[in-house]
């Protein structure tokens, strides 16, 4: 059922201190993951507004992942704890509205976890690819 040439669009929000550095480390170690993943650098996972996530889906993203420091390791001490609450509630709401829950994810990736970053992205892309295109939260005007 899955089209072979279908490439999901994935937006990854990465905190500057851990996950963005983790992504850099994945690069340093040449650990590959699909090019569909595009990273947006934010200072902290707590900078990610639910608006950004919905906006990405509106504009045709098929999956959105938020990566931050592990709980307890936030560069700003508490940012990821707030992000965790916000995303837990938001994701639950999206699920409630019937949006596939596999399209959203939060993953804690430290600056040392280049391998985890690559593995996470590989897994997320294949999960989203299996779901197919996001049709429930897209704005058709983007296809005009």
């Amino acid at each position, binding site marked *: 059922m899955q089209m072979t040439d279908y490439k999901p669009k994935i937006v990854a929000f990465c905190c500057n201190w851990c996950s963005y550095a983790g992504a850099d480390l994945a690069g340093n170690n040449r650990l590959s993951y699909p090019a569909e993943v595009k990273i947006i650098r934010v200072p902290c996972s707590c900078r990610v507004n639910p608006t950004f996530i919905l906006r990405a889906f509106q*504009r*045709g993203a098929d999956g959105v992942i938020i990566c931050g420091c592990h709980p307890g390791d936030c560069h700003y001490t508490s940012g990821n704890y707030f992000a965790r609450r916000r995303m837990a509630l938001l994701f639950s709401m999206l699920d409630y509205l019937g949006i596939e829950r596999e399209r959203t994810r939060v993953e804690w990736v430290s600056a040392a976890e280049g391998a985890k970053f690559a593995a996470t992205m590989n897994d997320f892309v294949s999960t989203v690819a299996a779901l197919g295109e996001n049709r429930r939260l897209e*704005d058709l*005007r*983007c*296809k*005009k």
Partner: protein
Amino acid sequence: MKRCPLSRLEDLFAALAESYKLYIPTDGEKGSSFTLWSEGAEISRRLNTARPPKDFFFPQSEDLMGFKTHGQTVELVDLRTEKEDFALFGVRACDAESLNILDRVFLSEPGDSYYASRREKGVIFTLACNKPAETCFCTAFGIDPSRPGGDVSCIECGEYLYLEPLTQKGEAALERLSAVTEDCDSAEAEPQREKIAKTVSRLPLADLSTEGFGEGKTDELFSDERWAELSRCCIGCGSCTFVCPTCQCYDIKDFKNGSGVVRYRCWDSCMYSDFTKMSAGQPRTDQTSRFRQRFMHKLVYFPENNDGVFGCVGCGRCVAKCPVSMNIVKVMRTLGGKKDE
């Protein structure tokens, strides 16, 4: 005049649906709405639809055009969606009249081609109101709910539905219904019209009048101090505007979709704080002036520019839907005079 037995209403709809996309009011759990007719669909038992038929001619949002970028060049894209011929059945007298009001806005030169094309494609079958509601006050604007306008004016009386063509478009439509209709005397429906007239005279808002409004009243009414009191609890939402069959204000916006722009227009409300906002700010900075604008427009400015025709048809939707019961009736009662005064 033609008639069709009420027992054959289904056949009449089927015949209409052969030539038109037919929409009839149907009942949902949360209210009634015009829906595409399909076999077995039942016509609404409620007096009127939650939203007026305005949407068919002037939808809440519609794409006007698009721009696509290719490198450094821009291409113009026509996003107009052409409608097929369609028929609306069961439009009430008030809503039918509202289209005449919208015509004055959209069809006067320079005409709005988007609206005009839809108007051209649509044929309106109106239906007299056998059971008006307490919120009805169309008579205040000279509308007779027993003689609705549109292309074909219909009334239920006894066992029959009586159909009278009022326009050429209506006549053409009726011709296609010859299999389910028969000729009759126009007097047959009179008893029902009288009955309606009697009910209407007993309506709680029957005494409402446009006395004190209309052309030439701007100066007197604009500076009336009672606007502040009238609008005191208005929450500034647009529900009155968006359920109104005659409100026709819109905003034009650009939606940047990444590969270009979709230019669309959407309904706007003079109740909103950013309505007609300009670089210098909002012309109306408080809710009182926005509230006043809405009713002055319907009761004074519109008639002033349109041969005395008021911008309200008394459908009563705003009366029913306002979250805090601020409505045109209150304004007319407070600032105008009663019929018998």
